[in-house]
């Protein structure tokens, strides 16, 4: 009589279903295990190997390592090679300038998003997301068309009679910088928009009600509240622009060397694996240092978000 109250288990369920039930019902780590294994094999182990290659002398023959011995030579070589210093310095400068310019040009868009109506917001979202769905090469190619010898800028200037000879814009630092900024703008704008759309619009009204001008509201309310978005955007833009090689390769001509193009040459053309490993590690570590710096600055300006969950 007593067990009749409990509904019977439905029969005829397959083994697979029972297995999934068992894996799910414990609310354990099991569902994530395949992903963990793949990440271990395809990310963690390769990183360890990269590390070991950077700190050893290897002899490669026919794409296979014949011998490997511990050595700091590649690291010390790299750190004393002026080419490394100038290359990384150039990359760092380029990436930091790009980040700053993306913020300068991107922030007004986010402000437009904040004050705009429903359709303005939609238009901005579409214009910002669409480029992210297009390949970086296609977007860089557009700048070849615009800045090239017979491109949009030169043709227009010549047709207007302002210049006789096409200006040489391509294959200069400026071409690279313009391309970098335009290509990474969406990556800066999206986090800014995200943080703006979480703003309580009544804060802006309250600020105006308390006598602040629109600029003062921007400076004292909107800007401080959007610091988390600025931090995220800056971190993303920096990482991408510091490690890209499409833009320097295409807009800088063959001789514009940044960290990424250097690694590409070391790994793919000259097959210097240890050098490539060391360069990759330096790239990763320097990138990490800047990211930590960005995070520290962001944290300093967002102390008001801390301790809320205490």
């Amino acid at each position, binding site marked *: *009589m*007593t*067990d*009749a*109250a*409990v*509904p019977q*288990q*439905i029969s005829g369920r397959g083994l697979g279903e029972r297995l999934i039930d068992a894996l799910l*019902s414990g609310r354990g780590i099991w569902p994530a295990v395949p992903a963990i294994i793949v990440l271990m094999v395809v990310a963690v182990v390769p990183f360890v190997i990269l590390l070991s290659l950077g700190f050893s002398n290897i002899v490669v023959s026919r794409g296979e390592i014949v011998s490997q011995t511990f050595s700091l030579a590649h690291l010390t070589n790299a750190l004393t090679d002026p080419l490394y210093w100038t290359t990384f310095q150039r990359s760092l400068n380029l990436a930091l300038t790009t980040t700053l310019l993306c913020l300068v040009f991107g922030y007004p868009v986010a402000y437009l998003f904040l004050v705009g109506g429903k359709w303005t917001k939609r238009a901005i979202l579409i214009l910002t997301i669409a480029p992210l769905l297009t390949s970086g090469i296609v977007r860089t190619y557009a700048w070849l068309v615009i800045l090239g010898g017979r491109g949009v800028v030169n043709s227009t200037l010549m047709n207007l009679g302002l210049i006789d000879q096409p200006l040489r814009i391509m294959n200069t630092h400026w071409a690279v910088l313009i391309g970098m900024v335009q290509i990474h703008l969406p990556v800066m704008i999206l986090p800014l928009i995200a943080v703006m759309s979480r703003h309580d619009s009544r804060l802006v009204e309250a600020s105006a009600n308390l006598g602040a001008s629109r600029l003062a509201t921007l400076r004292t309310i909107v800007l401080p509240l959007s610091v988390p978005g600025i931090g995220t955007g800056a971190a993303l833009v920096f990482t991408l622009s510091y490690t890209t090689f499409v833009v320097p390769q295409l807009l800088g001509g063959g001789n514009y060397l940044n960290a990424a193009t250097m690694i590409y040459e070391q790994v793919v053309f000259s097959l210097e694996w240890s050098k490539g490993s060391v360069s990759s590690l330096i790239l990763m570590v320097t990138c990490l240092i800047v990211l930590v710096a960005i995070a520290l600055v962001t944290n300093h300006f967002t102390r008001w978000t801390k301790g809320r969950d205490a």
Partner: protein
Amino acid sequence: MMHQHPRTASKVASSVPVLRIGAVGKQFGATKVLEKCSLDVDEGEIVTLLGPSGCGKTTLLRCIAGFLDADQGDVRIDGQDMGPIPVNRRPVGVVFQSYALFPHMTVARNVAYALKMQGIRGAEADRRVAGALATVSLQDFGDRYPSQLSGGQQQRVAIARVLVMEPRVLLLDEPFNALDAKLRSSMQVELRQLIKRLGLTAIFVTHDQEEALTMSDRIAIMRAGRIEQAAPPDEIFDYPATAYVADFIGTSNFWKASAAGGTVPLPDGQRRQTEHSGDVQIMARPHNLKLAEPEAGEWRGHVQFHRTIGALIEYHVETSDGVLLQVATMRQERAAPFDDGAAVSLHIIDPTYCAVYPAS
């Protein structure tokens, strides 16, 4: 109409309660959320778990439903230990605070869900879904989506959805929270009548004492993981077992006294019998006190503030030894007999109706 559970008849004959909660304990990390909670619920009874937030009432409900496993003690339904029974095979139906209606399914599919999961399809499923929807008067709403219904209608769908599987025990977790105040009281009456009409056994969780008083056959007052008192609403109100219960339900006046020789003196000169001795505290409800001219008694004070609430006048009186008391009297005439600042004497109407608790 819902069909009565086929096993009901045999159940009444035996003395096994439908639901027996036996010394259930539950810990989250170092905090004890439930401690030795015991409660028997009989066939057709509506019992409310009442207490402030964090008292463990929802945890206890979740232990019964099987969303949580009790660390100590057991939950039995019709005498059977629910410990080894997984959530999806316990004969309980839960109405969630948020209703948790599946937003991507129509009302009819929501109600049919439990049947489908048990492999019941076709004509029988259709008949039972129609029956459940008719029970909550939603027979014409089967094709709607939950988002197209009002809050009250959503609540009825949530109830129909569990009724369709004919649970032995209905568990309701603050089901009126999502409704606006006006709708709330009418839905309370309606829901109690529905549960009674179907003869269901139900456990109700709430922090609202008015809701508990309206809905329940018995109220279990919970505090810090323990059940302080489980009794019918009027008994809880008239004879609260602890000072905490007295304070939690209704308005209460406390003052200190000293008991000796089986009695305790009351400040107006009367005495009340008690089994306690030494320092005690005495509780009197506002309507067990009355005011008179200052010369009429030795327990003196003055009116600080008074207000008229419908047929009642509520006085806030400060006694001469500085205790603040509330006194409620029926209003006779248009004006209150005592104005703010007036000197008065206080009298206890029925000493046996005062409660005596050991001093805290």
